[in-house]
């Protein structure tokens, strides 16, 4: 029976729905406990997903596939949602009685991502993507009273809809050329013709929107800045990873380079993304917006792996996506804690953080440096994989630009570090982020350091996950 293979998906959906159902009639306190229970059960799902990592099966005539690639990302999304929720339990108290809706939407978004990466067919992919995206529209605007949040939701919706339309148009053109939407069959029936190229380019744009590649990145800073921080975090780590996973599966499996060499466009886009993201980040003064631009730059690095489209590159993408979860969540979790304490995410809110809470400052610094690719943190190994892949495919220039831009990025990360370490804070009271956030922070910190120092396990996992492409 096929449903046995879908245990993760089913349980996640059930948790999301149950959360909604059970919450009705509970008071705020009860809802808070319920959300914690939901997070705990998500953790069990995560364990389950880890155990079932190596399962492989194609379901429903190939419309839905269970493979190690999908399983890798399932683990990633579950980790991400758990970490994000853990780190935001303090933050989301402000939603009061809507807290369960919020959490359940987060879980649905994760569900959408899971479907997206397991799709064996463009239709499934689209549906999963929309589940995720529509959840995010709502989540972005979850602070409805807040103009920024509402505006972010609306902007995301308009732009997201446009990008969906573009993506769909691309898919329809591919369908026109091949007559199929099953990903594994497209490759077989591919013919080089203008419609194919148009289709590929439009799909590239559609996925590019999700992963925030230049010039499809414009929504990112606004939406990241306006949304509630947990949503921003999940957008950054989850939505982006899902975008990459789908991107990867479709482009590498369905669109062989021999038919149409999309690799070079990827490379150029990757380079532009790194440059633009990092350069604009330099002048930012709001930490959320800064991290938004930084996440654009990160997308550029990961895209370099896709442009390479070889073992190192793909492995690097998976590797990087995973470590990106820890590093970014860690950075955002600190931001959340600071926001909860000071009510602001401006850089000045971080002043003197190292005196108030040395651990928070240290974690923020370490996570950011991991994003910048400073060893011995995880980001360095990830970049090493990605750029090794790029060099192997002949994109030495891309590697050079990427590495130089990484170093440029250190500038703004260190600017924030400087504020944290030598800035003068108004109050000297320590920030208490709460037990769950602490847990999330320590997980992020330890994972970032551990992966950086001993990357072999994660790299082995990534290796296993990409075997469908080789």
């Amino acid at each position, binding site marked *: 029976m096929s449903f046995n293979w879908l245990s993760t998906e089913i349980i996640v959906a059930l948790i999301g729905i149950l959360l909604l159902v059970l919450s009705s009639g509970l008071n705020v306190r009860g809802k808070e406990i319920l959300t914690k229970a939901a997070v705990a059960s998500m953790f069990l799902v995560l364990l389950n997903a880890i155990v079932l990592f190596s399962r492989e099966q194609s379901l429903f005539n190939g419309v839905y596939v269970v493979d190690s690639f999908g399983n890798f990302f399932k683990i990633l999304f579950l980790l991400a949602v758990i970490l994000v929720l853990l780190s935001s339990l303090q933050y989301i108290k402000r939603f009061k009685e809507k807290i369960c809706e919020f959490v359940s939407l987060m879980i649905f978004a994760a569900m959408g991502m899971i479907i997206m990466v397991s799709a064996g067919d*463009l*239709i499934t992919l*689209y*549906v999963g993507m*929309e589940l995720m995206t*529509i959840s995010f*529209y*709502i989540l972005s*605007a979850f602070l*409805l009273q807040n*103009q*920024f949040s*509402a*505006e*972010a*939701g*609306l*902007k995301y*919706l*308009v732009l*997201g*809809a*446009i990008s*969906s*339309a*573009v993506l*769909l*148009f691309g*898919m*329809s*053109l591919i*369908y*026109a050329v*091949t*007559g*199929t*939407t*099953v990903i594994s069959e497209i490759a077989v*029936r591919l013919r080089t013709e203008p*419609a194919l190229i148009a289709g590929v380019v439009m799909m590239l744009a559609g996925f590019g929107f999700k992963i925030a590649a230049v010039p499809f990145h414009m929504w990112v*800073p*606004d*939406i990241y*800045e*306006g949304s509630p921080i947990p949503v921003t975090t999940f957008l950054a780590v989850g939505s982006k990873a899902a975008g990459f996973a789908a991107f990867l599966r479709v482009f590498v499996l369905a669109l062989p380079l021999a038919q149409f060499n999309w690799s070079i466009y990827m490379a150029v886009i990757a380079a532009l993304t790194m440059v633009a993201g990092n350069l604009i980040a330099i002048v930012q003064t709001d930490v959320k917006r800064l991290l938004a631009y930084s996440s654009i730059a990160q997308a550029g690095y990961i895209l370099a792996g896709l442009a390479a489209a070889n073992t190192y590159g793909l492995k690097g993408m998976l590797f990087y996506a995973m470590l990106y979860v820890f590093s970014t969540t860690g950075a955002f979790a600190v931001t959340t804690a600071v926001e909860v304490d000071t009510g602001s995410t401006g850089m000045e809110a971080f002043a003197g953080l190292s005196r108030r809470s040395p651990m928070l400052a240290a974690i923020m610094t370490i996570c950011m440096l991991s994003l910048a690719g400073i060893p011995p943190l995880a980001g360095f190994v990830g970049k090493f994989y990605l750029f090794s892949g790029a060099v192997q495919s002949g994109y030495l220039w891309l590697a050079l630009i990427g590495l130089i831009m990484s170093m440029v990025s250190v500038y703004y990360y260190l600017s924030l570090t400087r504020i944290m370490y030598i800035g003068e804070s108004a109050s000297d009271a320590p920030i208490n982020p709460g037990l769950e956030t602490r847990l999330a922070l320590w997980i992020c910190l330890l994972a970032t350091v551990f992966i950086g120092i001993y990357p072999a396990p994660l790299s082995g996992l990534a290796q296993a996950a990409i075997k469908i492409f080789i």
Partner: protein
Amino acid sequence: MPSLSHYLLLAAVLFGIGVYGVLSRRNVIAVLMSVELMLNAVNINFIAVMKFVPSDRHVGQVFALFVIVVAAAEVAVGLALIIAMYRHKKSVNLNDFNLLKW
């Protein structure tokens, strides 16, 4: 008898009109409607291809249906957000929604 390329051309034109609407209209509801045009262009493609390309007979139809459903959901959320935004700004003009920038 129109061939596939005619349909594709039609879809492309429709998509183009949608794009134009998206870029030029200031009313956010009109923009959403333009997006619907773009999605409809996609649907035309799917249906036409299904008719002309000899394989997987029903996929195009199914896809189009999904698109329609999802688009409906999207619009539902969209309208809700527009109302929320209208409460803040007393406007549905996209140009006014620029608190978030730079």
